[in-house]
């Protein structure tokens, strides 16, 4: 029978498996089918999501076409929509957040895995994981009631008076704005990034560190070795953080000032992001074109996420070929 020969052929490659009972073979097959179906559900969901987002944005795509991506006006009353300021706002705040969060989370992870006494590091690890589980609306409220007044009264005025000659740090201080949103995003993504990085450092073989120290390396040099060993994992953790920052809506909208403009006058000025405008305007939108334009923003956000993630992946693969390959041997 065809089925039997196929099975036999499959297990010929595994020398010891000829003596295995049939039940196990069927179990293997069932499990394989199960994992394959679960994995394909993920693909199916993304496919359906993209399809329905496209379907919903058809009126907007038909009306504006590619002009939607480079348009700089957003006027629901007159029915003029363009998303360029939102795209720039999303990318800028996420990039700034990453710039702040990456060294921060690396430091936290190293402190937890290498420098702290075990007693403390257990407690601190737990706290970091707890922070990673706080819902974003809580971060948003904290940002609105605590972070904004603190930044406006204590942090921003000295920054402006010392660095005000740069256009980035001049102009009026509202409290909320681009820098505040980036800082809040950085605070939000640091816990998850540092939790992953700490696990990575815990997984690096102790022989690596011991060998380095035996060769006369200082602790700092041994740690540097560890970082380069875990490089690809660190990039993966960063991608995860970036994904969260790009898609964050609730917390950002509460602190960014929600001002639709192509470029803010400074980092203290208000701006807007794609996820924030969705959180703001979707609820009460009744006009068909307005709704469609918002769905179009959702579709763009998905595409931009995809592009950013692919770029990040490519970087990781290049790293693995160049550096990782040597490290692993």
């Amino acid at each position, binding site marked *: 029978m065809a089925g039997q020969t196929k099975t036999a052929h499959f297990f010929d490659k595994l020398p010891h498996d000829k003596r295995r*009972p049939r*039940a*196990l073979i*069927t*179990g293997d097959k*069932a499990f394989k089918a199960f994992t394959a179906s679960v994995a394909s559900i993920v693909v199916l969901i993304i496919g359906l999501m993209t399809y329905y987002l496209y379907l919903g944005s058809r009126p907007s795509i038909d009306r504006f076409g590619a002009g939607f991506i480079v348009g700089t*006006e*957003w*006027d*629901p*009353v*007159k029915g003029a929509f363009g998303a360029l300021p939102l795209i720039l706002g999303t990318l800028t705040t996420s990039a700034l957040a990453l710039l702040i969060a990456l060294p921060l989370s690396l430091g936290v992870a190293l402190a937890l895995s290498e420098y702290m006494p075990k007693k403390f590091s257990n407690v601190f690890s737990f706290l970091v994981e707890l922070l990673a589980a706080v819902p974003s609306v809580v971060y948003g409220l904290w940002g*609105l*009631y605590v972070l*904004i*007044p603190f930044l*406006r009264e204590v942090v921003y005025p000295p920054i402006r008076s010392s660095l005000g000659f740069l256009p980035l740090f001049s102009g*009026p201080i*509202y*409290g*909320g704005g681009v820098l505040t949103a980036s800082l809040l995003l950085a605070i939000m993504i640091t816990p998850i990034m540092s939790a992953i990085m700490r696990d990575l450092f815990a997984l690096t073989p102790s022989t690596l560190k011991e060998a380095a120290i035996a060769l006369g390396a200082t602790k700092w040099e041994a740690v540097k070795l560890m970082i380069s060993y875990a490089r690809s994992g660190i990039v993966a953790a960063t991608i995860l953080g970036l994904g969260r920052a790009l898609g964050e809506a609730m917390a950002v*909208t*509460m602190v960014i*000032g*929600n*001002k*639709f403009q192509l470029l803010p006058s400074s980092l203290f000025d*208000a701006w*807007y992001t794609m996820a*924030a405008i969705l*959180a*703001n*305007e979707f*609820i*009460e*939108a*009744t006009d068909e074109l*307005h709704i469609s334009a918002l769905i179009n923003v959702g579709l763009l956000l998905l595409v931009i996420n995809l592009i950013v993630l692919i770029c990040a992946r490519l970087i990781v693969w290049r790293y693995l070929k160049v550096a990782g390959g040597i490290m692993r041997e």
Partner: protein
Amino acid sequence: MKRRDIALAGALLIVIAFVGVTIWHFIAPQTTEQGTSPSPQTTKEISINGAGATFPFPLYDKWISEYCKARPNVKINYQPIGSGGGIRAHIDKTVHFAASDAPLSEEQLRRAPGTLHIPMTIGAVVVVYNLPGAPEGLNFSGEVLAKIFLGEITRWSDPAIVALNPGVQLPDKEIVVVHRSDSSGTTYVFTDYLSTVSQKWEEKVGRGVSVSWLAPRAIGAKGNDGVVVTVQQTPYSIGYVEFTYAMKTRLPYGKLMNAAGEYIEPNIESIKKAVEYVAVELPRGDESWSTVSIARSLARNVQARGAYPIVSFSYIMVYKELSTLPGMDEATARALVDFLWWCVHEGQNYAAELYYVPLPPRVVKLNEDTLEMITFNGQRVLGS
């Protein structure tokens, strides 16, 4: 081998149970709907679903809990998903009643023929500001407000503001405009008023639940509470919020000049008065309400003494013929109309304590007539 078989059988059972539960979950609501078909006499559970505006939600929530306390077999569920969502749900007939801060437009009315508008409560938009050293109750006029929110008046010491407030020392500081970032009925009412009093506003911005703001120094804040917090935190800022929110915080709010030329403080009396002036020209419940705007009517009425100028209704919308709703039966129809009748009468007593403005008698009478129009399978629901 035996053990493995048992494990496999167990896994299979779990899968079957999971699939079964899932299927049952999808089928179950349909069977209950079939079960509640026409048998009005039994005192079985009746559930009514509504969705829509967030602004009246605290009041509706209070009404529902008070109403259902005395009627344990009635369950009313109201989802505050926003006026836009409420109107969509009403057109799609997925709820028994919908709530919105804006009446249906002509276009929406065409897609939902036979809609009755029932004004349930009254809201007002109040101008709040944060001006260190300045007194409460600054005077504003519609024209000056429009210029501030257009970005044409940029300083508190502008002669136009000074002229409205003789004797008040106004700081020479730049004005920070705070507006709603989320689309909302409050923004609609405010921009509707500004469009009425300022030609330039109507041309450049217009009226809508979300508009394109032109003031260069502006912050968008989410929700009424977001605007309150942002104004509180930002010196020299000005914003607009629902009356209820202005009353609950200690922010100073402005007096507004009405068409009669008086500066009116927003309070329950002046808001109620505004509605009384307009009540005479309201349409019947089954007519189109798309052009109803208290703010616009008041702006024309120079006789409206003592009336606060930015006032609006919040509506509940139902279909005149309730049997057109899927899953609706006579008992549910009766309960729904009884609940709405209760809201229009007893319910109004709970309004003031939550800082909502109770309906004046003329509007209550109008609503009584509207509720009497409701039918189920052609039979009047009330009094039959």
